[in-house]
């Protein structure tokens, strides 16, 4: 799934509980009471997944912040987005649904 390279935009699932704790994002899915933790770089990406910014835009910021190649940053972001979407932590930006699915 090429979630960002093809221009798809993603946003946080609005039903989630989440908070930044000491620089790292903690997320709870209310439908299954699962706790998720993101590391620092994943947290950087999470905060920018707002349904408006593209993967390339976020990759540019990530590369500048962490001194990595933009293409490597974009690859990491695509992998992360795929994982987050598979856990229903992200929903497509054009999907207004807040369905609580298992």
């Amino acid at each position, binding site marked *: 799934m090429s979630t960002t390279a093809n221009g798809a935009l993603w946003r946080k699932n609005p*039903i*989630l*509980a*989440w*908070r*930044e*704790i*000491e620089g790292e994002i*903690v997320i*709870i899915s*209310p*439908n299954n*009471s*699962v*706790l*998720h*933790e*993101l*590391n*620092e*770089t*994943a947290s950087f990406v999470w905060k920018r997944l707002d349904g408006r910014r593209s993967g390339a835009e976020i990759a540019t910021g990530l590369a500048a912040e962490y001194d990595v190649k933009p293409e490597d940053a974009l690859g*990491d972001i695509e*992998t*992360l987005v*795929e*994982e*987050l979407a598979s*856990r229903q932590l992200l929903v497509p930006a054009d999907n207004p649904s*807040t369905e*609580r699915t298992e």
Partner: protein
Amino acid sequence: MSTSAPIGATPLMDGLIARTTCKRVPISVHFDLTYRCNERCVHCYLDHNDHGELTTIECVEVLEQLAAAGTLFLTFSGGEIFLRIDFFEILAAARRLHFDISLKSNALLITPERAARLRELGVRRIQISVYSADPAIHDAITKVPNSFSRTIAAIPRLVEQGLKVKLACPLMQQNLLAYRGVIELAEKLGVPYVLDLTITPMMDGSETTLAHRASVSSLLPVLRDPALHACKPRPESHSFSAREAIPAVTGSAVSSGIESSAYEDLPCSAGHNSCYISPYGDVLPCVQLPQAAGNLRREKFEDIWYHAPQLERLRAIRESQLPFCSRCEIRSYCERCPGLALMEGGDLLGAYERACDLAEQKARLAGLTDPVSALHQERAASISAPTGNEIASLVTDSSPN
């Protein structure tokens, strides 16, 4: 991105608790929105008159301050929360601020429409008070006719919406022998339960509620019952088979976040990574530790949380420094509560009779021969011990930043 492996429930939650305790992040807040109630439970510790509740706007401002301070686990309770006509407005604000939301209610006012709205607003858990499977016993405790049938009728509505429902049953003289019925009721409804042996003094210090407390000797059948192990639910183990290439996310089931070995030498979470807020804006370490550290109508939450002397003193206390309890041979059987030690024993650092008596019974049931708590040993030997105040000055001096 860094690498890590998927891990189970307890390490992940314990890690969160350890970090927030160390950094003093108020990760868990219990917010009573009202003390008004549509039941009059005989053991209730609250004054149900409205003495000036926070307005809707004030409640939302409090939530905004809590979100900024790092609070994730938020419990709305009362009184009966559904008596606030702005409850769903407050709940919607909590949703916008991304809290993990739990509720405590008697469920009398939960209609199918309200249950659906709770789901839409992302409420994850709701704890409902049930005192017996016998309607007569339940209604006699709540003093509201038909309250049992109305409460029980609401539970399937909530379960159907996917909310995690738990029955809470405080045990007292009136319903002591009814606990097995509550367990069977919970099993029939397919929901977990918690039996609570704690009946507390009223928040103003009055001990009228204690007349309903079951004696330690009368609790023996309950203490012997293996079903009581269910009173301490453990988080189920749950881990993801995350791809090696994407180790940035780990998952586990969420527990209450309160009981954890991560607290180590701390008496409990109160004031370390959790606190209580009253309907009038008072900030307390815990609902059972009625020492207001400040009021949100006069001060910002962060100013109270990080700078109130009451909280600083509390944070300096270590279990290993408690004058009696630290040397008690049956400490592992004891569920000492600092708030109850203060309310019932008059000393935040002290032992209190009820906890000592219960610990002795539990130790005896576990096979120990004539177990005696440190408090009772001291009394028997008539040896004076350092007072709580003396120890308090010691721990205050060694308070961390």
